[in-house]
């Protein structure tokens, strides 16, 4: 049926929006691969593996930012523990990647190095079937989703909102971080997983594999953007925004707000898990530090800097903040925390609408 489909597409973005998306898609799927693989490394136009990995990583973060914007910008739920779902996704895929090291580890054993080091003889229960890619991917999205569902169900049912909810999500990720730091939990303790060799038979460090993962991340990002756009322009999105503004009223209109919140919350967690799985393949390491409360709070600032409630703002914010982080931690490492901290303060005080808001103001002022 082409009728409703084209109507849907028309609803998502106007002509200029689609043009911009196509241009970005072109850059991601054509230009970058060309400049990285086809152009020789000596040329000035060559895009190095470093940049590919960095941009790929930031795209994964952008997916998380989109997920955060959906629950915060459009539903008013500020989660300070979303990094947990991201990290769980990373660990899920990480288990597969660890299995794929096979006997090429330091100890030349079937079990991963950290298990040999701990004198274990067999994989713990959670590693079952993780040598299968599809199962690991399923874990990477289903475990965060399930955790989010259970947690969200109990939290939203008790009408916990606002600051209390945020604090509890922080406590959740903190508790999980403590758990994963323990060696007994079976996830590598404070070293986590690293030293990956292969994925689906391909060596993980070749330029070709990197490029595939890069373009895949880009595709998922664009797909998430379109999905988000669909959601927020639908009636569902309008109900969500109404819940953000006046939840009582929505309930009295006859909507079961618990279901709505639970849906977007779980979806958000699943997206984060997926992003985590993509992330770990490109960055090559996952450890419990990803679950730290600080990481999760940073996600919120990406969205705030870009402009919450705009979707595109989340992507911009993730890019700007992580780009700045990459720059500062290399050039002026002692100053990065100052910059980040000031960003938090100044954005909340003076730029409540974020970069997108500034842009809109500038456009309407012309």
């Amino acid at each position, binding site marked *: 049926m082409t009728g*409703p489909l084209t109507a849907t597409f028309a609803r998502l973005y106007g002509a200029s929006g689609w043009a911009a998306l196509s241009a970005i898609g072109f850059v991601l799927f054509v230009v970058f691969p060309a400049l990285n693989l086809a152009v020789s490394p000596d040329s000035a136009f060559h895009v190095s593996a470093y940049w590919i990995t960095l941009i790929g990583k930031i795209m994964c973060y952008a997916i998380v930012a989109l997920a955060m914007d959906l629950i915060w910008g459009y539903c008013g739920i500020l989660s300070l523990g979303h990094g947990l779902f991201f990290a769980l996704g990373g660990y899920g895929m990480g288990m597969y990647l660890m299995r794929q090291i096979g006997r090429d580890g330091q100890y030349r054993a079937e079990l991963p190095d950290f298990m040999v080091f701990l004198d274990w003889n067999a994989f713990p229960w959670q590693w079952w079937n993780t040598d299968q890619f599809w199962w690991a991917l399923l874990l990477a999205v289903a475990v965060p989703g399930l955790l989010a569902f259970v947690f969200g169900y109990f939290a939203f049912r008790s009408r916990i909102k606002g600051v209390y909810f945020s604090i509890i999500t922080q406590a959740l990720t903190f508790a999980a971080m403590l758990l994963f730091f323990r060696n007994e939990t079976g996830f590598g303790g404070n070293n986590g997983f690293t030293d990956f060799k292969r994925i689906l038979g391909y060596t993980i460090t070749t330029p070709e594999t990197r490029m595939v993962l890069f373009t895949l991340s880009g595709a998922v990002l664009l797909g998430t953007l379109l999905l988000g756009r669909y*959601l927020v322009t*639908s*009636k*569902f999105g*309008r*109900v969500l*925004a*109404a819940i953000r*503004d*006046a939840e*009582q*009223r*929505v*309930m*009295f*209109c*006859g*909507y*079961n*707000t618990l*279901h*709505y919140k639970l*849906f977007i919350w779980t979806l958000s967690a699943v997206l984060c898990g997926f992003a985590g799985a993509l992330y770990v393949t490109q960055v090559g390491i996952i450890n419990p530090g990803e679950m730290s409360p600080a990481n999760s709070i940073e996600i919120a600032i990406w969205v705030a800097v870009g402009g919450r409630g705009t979707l595109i703002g989340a992507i911009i914010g993730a890019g700007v903040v992580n780009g700045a982080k990459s720059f500062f931690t290399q050039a002026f490492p002692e100053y990065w925390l100052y910059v980040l901290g000031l960003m938090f303060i100044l954005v909340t005080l003076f730029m409540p609408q974020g970069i997108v808001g500034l842009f809109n103001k500038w456009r309407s002022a012309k």
Partner: protein
Amino acid sequence: MAVGEMMTSTTAPPRDGVDDPIPSSSRLHTPGQLDATHGVVLYLDNISVSFDGFKALNNLSLAIDTGELRCVIGPNGAGKTTMMDVITGKTRPDSGTAFFGQTIDLKQFSEVEIAQAGIGRKFQKPTIFEHHTVFENLELAMKADKRVIKSLFARLSGAERDRIAEMLALIRLTDSAQRVAGLLSHGQKQWLEIGMLLMQEPKLLLLDEPVAGMSDDETERTAELFLTLAGKHSLVVVEHDMAFVEKIARKVTVLHEGSVIAEGAMDEVQNDPRVIEVYLGR
């Protein structure tokens, strides 16, 4: 009035037996479906609610007939809003019974279920969706299948658009349809909320100070609207504006310190010495 007519709902099971032509004696009553055919649409008996030792409602008893327009008056702190909280399920009473029709025990259901069963409430302070347009406010309130899965794929049909257009005309906001609701005047916001309430096609409307802050003209129109709604809908109106109450009320209930101290026609109540003492003044 088109808004009063039953609209065929999409997939939700019919909850309303009022317009069913089959005589009641041969119907099987299903718990959860409203049965207001016996004349009483709201029944409160000895409802008591206390907050931390303070008794907000003290053995309150009240009965509203189907199609009635009842006014509830009383001084501040008499328990009027708490009574509405109990009816809509926002507060659970410590004791007493509350029934909507013959079959729906209000103590058992959640706020959402009660709203879906056909009780609509307008709050004291106009509570609308400030960041949505007037049109969207009405669209969201409209009686429909309100489940998540339906909202994800919902499309406004022609009939639904017509209904919204009719409502916009009724509440005189046709020109502001695409305006962000937060920018409306106070009186306009009150009307929008009344419009949203009507979009839900409730059987019982609870209106908490609906004309507060309205101009005389707007108050006049509100009175007219309520009078036309009565009969097809049942209304409970809480108000302080005595002129307004006189205009619309047939029967008035006076609340004081959580219980009913007088009930009857307007002039009876106005001349009741107790009422004069606690509320109206000499």
